[in-house]
């Protein structure tokens, strides 16, 4: 009797670590990326005409995958406070549009790349970096997703491609622009950029 109980508890104990290391952030990102690949590989969505539908679907997936508020705040950094609440809202809207278009464009040009999900490392209490490698024909590109936990959900707030952090890169651009121009001028630049629409 005791042996059986011990055995049962042992198995129970073995299961516990498994649930702790279920790698929720990694699984979350993986699920989103897989959905995007599904859209890309969908035979019903091939060809030029289906492009719009394809991009629409990818946009809605990226909406769930990314935390655009966090992305926007971190890309502006210290300059976030230079914008009033209305400007901040508009900035998030415009920046989101820019990123979604860019992401959709880039991703729809993929042909036979593979994504390998490697591991996740903890950055801080609420943030984790999910490390992946995208295998192309001639190279292996390390792409890391930094996710933050909010309301029990893990969302992406930064993408690091070959060591280049997206929000760092935009931060340096915005810093330079806002050193010379007003926030309103920045918004105008963004409006024009986003208004151009997809070029492909």
């Amino acid at each position, binding site marked *: 009797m005791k042996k059986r109980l011990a055995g049962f508890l042992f198995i129970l104990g073995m299961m516990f670590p498994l649930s702790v290391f279920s790698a929720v952030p990694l699984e979350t990102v993986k699920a989103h990326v897989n959905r995007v690949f599904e859209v890309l590989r969908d035979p019903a969505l091939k060809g030029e005409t289906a492009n719009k539908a394809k991009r629409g679907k990818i946009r809605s997936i990226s909406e769930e995958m990314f935390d655009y508020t966090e992305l926007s705040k971190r890309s502006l950094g210290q300059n976030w406070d230079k914008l009033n609440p209305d400007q901040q809202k508009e900035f998030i809207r415009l920046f989101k549009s820019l990123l979604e278009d860019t992401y959709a464009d880039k991703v729809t040009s993929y042909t036979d790349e593979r994504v390998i999900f490697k591991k996740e490392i903890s950055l*801080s209490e609420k943030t984790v970096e999910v490390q992946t490698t995208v295998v192309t024909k001639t190279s292996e590109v390390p792409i890391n997703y930094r996710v933050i936990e909010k309301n029990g959900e893990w969302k992406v707030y930064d993408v690091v491609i*070959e060591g*280049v*952090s997206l929000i*760092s890169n935009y931060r340096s*651009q915005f810093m*330079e622009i806002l*050193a010379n121009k007003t926030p309103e001028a920045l918004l105008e630049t963004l409006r024009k950029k986003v208004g151009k629409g997809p*070029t492909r």
Partner: protein
Amino acid sequence: MNRMPSVILLLLLLSLFLLILNQTVAIAASIEPYDSPAREEERTSRLLSPITETDPIENEQPPLVVVQQKGSGKEDPAQEIPDEQKGFNAEEKEEEAVLMADPLRPWNKAMFLFNDKLYFWVLKPVTLGYTYIAPEPLRMILNNFFDNLRAPGRFVNNLLQLKMKAAGNEFVRFVFNSTAGLGGLADAAKDLLHIQKSPADFGQTLGYYGIGHGFYLVWPMIGPSSPRDTVGYIGDRILYPLSFLSFTEISFGVSSVIFVIETVNETSFQIGDYEAFKEAAIDPYVSLRDAYFQNRKKAMEK
């Protein structure tokens, strides 16, 4: 071949010059030049000056050095800092913007524009034509061939950076790919032995020994660089076997043609990358500068 010693001497002199230049520019720009991880601690502890507010209407001249204000100014005890913001500031220190002096901005900007036109008017059309004629398997084989030629350079630089395992890997890769891989046409070491490439270049090696970038420098055709990475590039080309030959047996014309084929072949796998990058950027010039230094920093940390 008897030119080699003098070239190596030249490289050493250039490195010394760089070291001096580095310090001079640092004093002139009042900012610590970006350099090796060993000096990272020093740099992060320095107080950085806030961004100078320039008159938005009259003065269109962008600042020479863009400096980010650290979160330290925000610790007002009277203010309630919400949890989110706290985490945000802490991580900002971790993700601090890679600061880089850009004293030659007019030149750099001009070169950037030149390279941009060069890509769209020359390199891209030629590459697209090439892609039309040359089937992908052939281009892949050529890619392997050229990449194998860069292995001696990777080997030497890994050695200089005391990365023994990586150096060993590159040695094995070079020998195996040149023999079993039929003169480097196939990356047999990766496919059969599962030994991956260990990238290392001379610019990285210089950084390892504490030589900082100095400042941003854009060259026509080669693209973004810095004084340190330029010396690095020269060093790499010297270790490139085809350069050996061009000193002796092959004429300048032939080696130029090989260089063009190498460049076009490599570009054939990268069409669309630059376009996508430009589309994503709000200021492509700044974006490229920042991306270049972030990428170089990451390469050093490996």
